[in-house]
C-alpha cells in the first residue's frame, strides 16, 4: 500500500470535540480503518501524514530519522499560528524540540530527579498534600464543589512547586499564564502570557543561582557549575518546561479520571474493592482520555518506509496518540473503559526518547488522588450531567474547565 489517500479533513482542529463526550471524533476511526497512516490536509495549509495505528505510531516516535526540531522548514505546526511560530523560532529550543545527542545532553542530567526510587520517597508528602486539600473540600460549607479548583489544580501545582522550589504563593500567577498559553484564543493573549511567565521564571532562576535551596532547580544549577557549564537560558527553558508541563496536564487527568470513574460505576466499584487495582486503572484512564493528542509531531529527515507507506524527507508527520490508544489492534474494544484490561502499552505519555519525563510522578499523583478521594468521600457524585460539562475543546490539552461534585 504505497498510494496515499488524500482525505479532506480541512475542518480538523485539535483537540476536537469528542463524542459522548469521551470518545475520539468519528473521523479518527474512519481514517484508521482506511489505513494506519494517511495523508491529510491541515487547517493551517499544506499536508502531513496522520498516523492512527498504535504500532505505526510507536515506530515513528522511536525512529531517529524523524526530527522534533520545530524550527525546521516543513515542520507540521498545525496547532500554532504564525506569531507563535516566530516566537518559538526566536527562543532557544526546549528539550521537546531537540534531537539526538543535543536532546540526550539536555535530558540526561534531569532524569535522575524522576527515578522510581526518588519518586517513592515523595509519596508520603504527596499523600499529605492530597489529604490537606480533601480536608479543605470537606470543610466547605457549600455544595456542590468544583473539583477542578478544590483538588485537580492545587495538588499537582503544590507538588511541582515543592519539587522545583517555586513559591506556592505565586501559583495563581503561573497557573493562569500557563492555562492561557495552552488555550486556542487570541495569539496576543498567548504571547503575553508566555512572555510574562518566561520573565517570572528567569527571575526565579537568577535568585536560585545566588541563593540555592534544596530543590530540583538548585541541584541542576549546582550540577552545571561543577561541570563549568552554567547555562542560564537553558536552565530557564528547563524550569519553564517542568513548571508548565507539570501541573496542567496532571490536573486535567485528575478531573477526567474522576469523571470517567463516576460515569462508569461498575468500574469504580472494581477500584474501590481493591486499591491494588488503582495503578492499572490509572493506565486505562490515561489511555481512554489521552489528553495530549496531536502534540507528537515530527519531520522526516530522510525517506522512511513505515507501515507500507513511503514518507519522504521533508514531510511532516502527526502521530495521533488518541487514535493509537483507541486502535483495536492494540486494545480490544477500545471504547470500553475497562480498568482491568492492562493498558500499560498506551502511548498517552508519548513514546521514544521524548516520552514524558514526569510520567511516573503523574502516575503516583493520580493513584494517590483516586485512592484517597474515593476512600474518604465514598458517596462522591457528579452534581451535573456529564454531557453538560464545559469540556476543554479550546485547549491543546483536553480536560474539563469545571467539575461540580457533591456527596
Amino acid at each position: 500500500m504505497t498510494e496515499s489517500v488524500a482525505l479532506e479533513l480541512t475542518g480538523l482542529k485539535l483537540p476536537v470535540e469528542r463524542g459522548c463526550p469521551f470518545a475520539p471524533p468519528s473521523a479518527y476511526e474512519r481514517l484508521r480503518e482506511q489505513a494506519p497512516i494517511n495523508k491529510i490536509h491541515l487547517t493551517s495549509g499544506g499536508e502531513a501524514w496522520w498516523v492512527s495505528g498504535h504500532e505505526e505510531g510507536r515506530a515513528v516516535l522511536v525512529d531517529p530519522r524523524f526530527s522534533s526540531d520545530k524550527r525546521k522548514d516543513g515542520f507540521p505546526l498545525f496547532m500554532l499560528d504564525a506569531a507563535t511560530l516566530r516566537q518559538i523560532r526566536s527562543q532557544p529550543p526546549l528539550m521537546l524540540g531537540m534531537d539526538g545527542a543535543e536532546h540526550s545532553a539536555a535530558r540526561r542530567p534531569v532524569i535522575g530527579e524522576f527515578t522510581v526510587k526518588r519518586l517513592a520517597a515523595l509519596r508520603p508528602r504527596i499523600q499529605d498534600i492530597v489529604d490537606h486539600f480533601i480536608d479543605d473540600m470537606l470543610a466547605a460549607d457549600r455544595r456542590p464543589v468544583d473539583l477542578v479548583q478544590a483538588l485537580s489544580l492545587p495538588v499537582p501545582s503544590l507538588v511541582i512547586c515543592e519539587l522545583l522550589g517555586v513559591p506556592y504563593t505565586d501559583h495563581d500567577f503561573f497557573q493562569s499564564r500557563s492555562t492561557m498559553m495552552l488555550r486556542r484564543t487570541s495569539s496576543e493573549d498567548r504571547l503575553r502570557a508566555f512572555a510574562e511567565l518566561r520573565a517570572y521564571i528567569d527571575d526565579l532562576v537568577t535568585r536560585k543561582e545566588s541563593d540555592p535551596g534544596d530543590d530540583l532547580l538548585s541541584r541542576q544549577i549546582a550540577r552545571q557549575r561543577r561541570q563549568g557549564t552554567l547555562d542560564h537560558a537553558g536552565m530557564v527553558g528547563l524550569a519553564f518546561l517542568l513548571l508548565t508541563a507539570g501541573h496542567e496536564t496532571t490536573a486535567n487527568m485528575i478531573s477526567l479520571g474522576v469523571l470517567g470513574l463516576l460515569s462508569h460505576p461498575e468500574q469504580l466499584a472494581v477500584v474501590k474493592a481493591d486499591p491494588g487495582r488503582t495503578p492499572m486503572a490509572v493506565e486505562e484512564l490515561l489511555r481512554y482520555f489521552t489528553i495530549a493528542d496531536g502534540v507528537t509531531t515530527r519531520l522526516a529527515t530522510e525517506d522512511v518506509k513505515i507501515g507500507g507507506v513511503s514518507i519522504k524527507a521533508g514531510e511532516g508527520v502527526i502521530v495521533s496518540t488518541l487514535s493509537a490508544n483507541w486502535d483495536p489492534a492494540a486494545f480490544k474494544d477500545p471504547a470500553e473503559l475497562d480498568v482491568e484490561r492492562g493498558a500499560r502499552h498506551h502511548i498517552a505519555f508519548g513514546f521514544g526518547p521524548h516520552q514524558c519525563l514526569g510520567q511516573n510522578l503523574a502516575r503516583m499523583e493520580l493513584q494517590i488522588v483516586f485512592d484517597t478521594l474515593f476512600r474518604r468521600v465514598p458517596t462522591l457524585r457528579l452534581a451535573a450531567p456529564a454531557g453538560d460539562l464545559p469540556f476543554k475543546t479550546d485547549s491543546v490539552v483536553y480536560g474539563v474547565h469545571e467539575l461540580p461534585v457533591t456527596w
Partner: protein
Amino acid sequence: MMRIKADSDLCVGSGQCVLTEPAVFAQDDDGIVALLTDHPDDQSARQAHHAVTLCPSRALSILQE
C-alpha cells in the same frame, strides 16, 4: 533460559522497566537502567518480556528466549 541486554546509551530513564519488573530492572542514581540480573528466572520472565516491549527508547532487547 531467557537472556536480556540493556543499552545504557539508548536509555532515556523513563523507568517503565522498573515499574514492570523490579526484580530484574533498576535505575542508577542518574536514572539509567541497571540490570539486577541478565537471566530472569521463570517467575520474572513474562514481566521482563513485557518490560522490553514497553521501553520507549528500545534500550532493552532479548538475546535469547
